[in-house]
């Protein structure tokens, strides 16, 4: 069985690159190929001109796997200390670096706990912490917010944003399209092992390409007068038909002139979500 085929892609040096796809699409297989944990039966994978295994053995990668596998008897501190040695964090910097990642990921109170005593969210943060121990050129994050609560999901986005730097590639595979929409410069959509399309979420996102949801305090009639074809989705909430920017703005101005209170206006689907639906349907 071929998990990934007909897949050709080049990722730039300073990119945050996303990979989206349904379950079983081949995301994890692709990541295993990037780390050299699997060899392609046909074709090549190169990182900075090297075979993945050669690259990893020479430079290392920051890698967070979807399932966190760390020996359960290790304590959190011990795990980070071990990984820091193996990652090549200089001995003199180890304690400082450990303190930094522990602080960054809010793990201070769990330092003495064994891995088996950690909750799913804390284990995920430990996984992320070990990936960030060294200043790696390539960081691969597989479902990085899996198991994180909303606070840490938001915090994770800040952490990844702070990791951006020239010359560093951050590769994120996720089911969470909203996360990829916010973080990634480009997103590859993969389905049934094949690359369906590559999307630039921020560049592609523009009014006129997606319907909007309007939340407004006004009579239903007023909204439907201004935006014919608007569909009520709940109290004070309407899905507007596909409109270009001037028409949308003019309509909103008319509503405001009629004394309506607009409390929110947001895309019905993110641009990425729309691309995803289309790509996976194809």
């Amino acid at each position, binding site marked *: 069985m071929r998990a990934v085929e007909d897949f050709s892609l080049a990722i730039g040096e300073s990119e945050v690159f996303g990979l989206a796809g349904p379950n079983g699409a081949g995301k994890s297989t692709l990541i295993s190929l990037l780390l050299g*944990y*699997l060899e392609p039966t046909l074709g090549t994978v190169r990182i900075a001109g090297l075979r993945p295994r050669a690259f990893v053995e020479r*430079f290392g990668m920051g890698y967070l*796997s979807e399932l966190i596998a760390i020996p359960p008897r290790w304590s959190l501190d011990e795990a980070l200390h*071990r*990984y820091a*040695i*193996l990652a*090549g964090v200089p001995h003199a910097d180890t304690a400082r670096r450990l303190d930094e990642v522990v602080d960054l990921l809010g793990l201070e109170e769990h330092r003495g706990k064994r891995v088996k005593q950690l909750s799913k969210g804390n284990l995920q943060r430990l*996984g992320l912490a070990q990936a960030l121990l060294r200043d790696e050129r390539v960081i691969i994050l597989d479902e990085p917010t899996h198991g994180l609560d909303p606070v840490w999901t938001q915090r994770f986005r800040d952490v990844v944003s702070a990791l951006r730097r020239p010359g560093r590639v951050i590769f994120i595979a996720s089911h969470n399209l909203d996360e990829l929409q916010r973080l990634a410069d480009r997103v590859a959509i993969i389905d049934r092992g094949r690359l369906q399309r590559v999307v630039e979420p921020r560049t592609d996102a523009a009014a006129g390409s997606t319907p909007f949801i309007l939340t407004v305090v006004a009579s239903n009639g007023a909204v439907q007068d201004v935006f014919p074809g608007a569909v009520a989705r709940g109290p004070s909430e309407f899905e507007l038909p596909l409109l270009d920017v001037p028409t949308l703005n003019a309509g909103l101005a008319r509503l405001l002139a009629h004394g309506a209170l607009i409390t929110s206006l947001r895309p019905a689907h993110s641009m990425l979500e729309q691309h995803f639906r289309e790509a996976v349907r194809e």
Partner: protein
Amino acid sequence: MTTSDRRARLNAYAPWIFRDYFMNQGPSTAIVVLMIGFLTLLPIIQGFGGERVQLGEVPEVIAIRMLHAMIPPLVFIGAFFATNGIISNDRKLGYYKFLFAKPLSPPLYYGMIFAIYGVGLLVVSAALIGVWWFTVRPMFPTALFAVVFIMYVAYGGIGFLLSAAWRFDWLSLVTVLLVANVGWSVWGAATGPRKWVLYLLPPVHHANEIYGIVARDALHGIPWASIAWLGGYGAACFAAGLIVIRLRSFGTN
């Protein structure tokens, strides 16, 4: 990152491997061997078939015979516990994922673990000799360390290869050694193709001669041929294991 950097990091990591051995395989080896030793010593101190003897005062002849009887379980259990799951567990449980995303060479990493576990087994053997000193007879047979080392390379090397090759390493190690024992004892004198097939199996029939080194079997001297056979077989398996680690993708089961 240069090769010497990678080696330096592995050296820095070595104390953790030692610690792992002395938290896991070391105590297990010591406990099982002590239990076997206790069962061997019990009839002697109870005087079955002769005079009762005091703890720590077993006559030298009997002590050496006992030692000779204790070596096979020590070397087998020591090598078995040390190499069981040495590579296959990391594959099976997914521990390789974070490990080998670091700038590490898997063959070098596992080669180092194999070497450190071997040293660990020598330390456990020394501790067991300490127990022996007080419970059987004050003696320090230095040749035992040579025997443990040779047999660790022999049996451990086979275990290492099997662990690199697939997940059922403990079962296959026991099977291979059992089949080799039966094969060499039944068809050891055979000639022709059957003999050549036997040569593929570990030359376990040489083990007794190596154990004899401890029994100060001076008449026969040092059995260099047996050492070369068994040690060479184990070393070849170890080298093959390193190649398998290099060639077999970690993402495959």
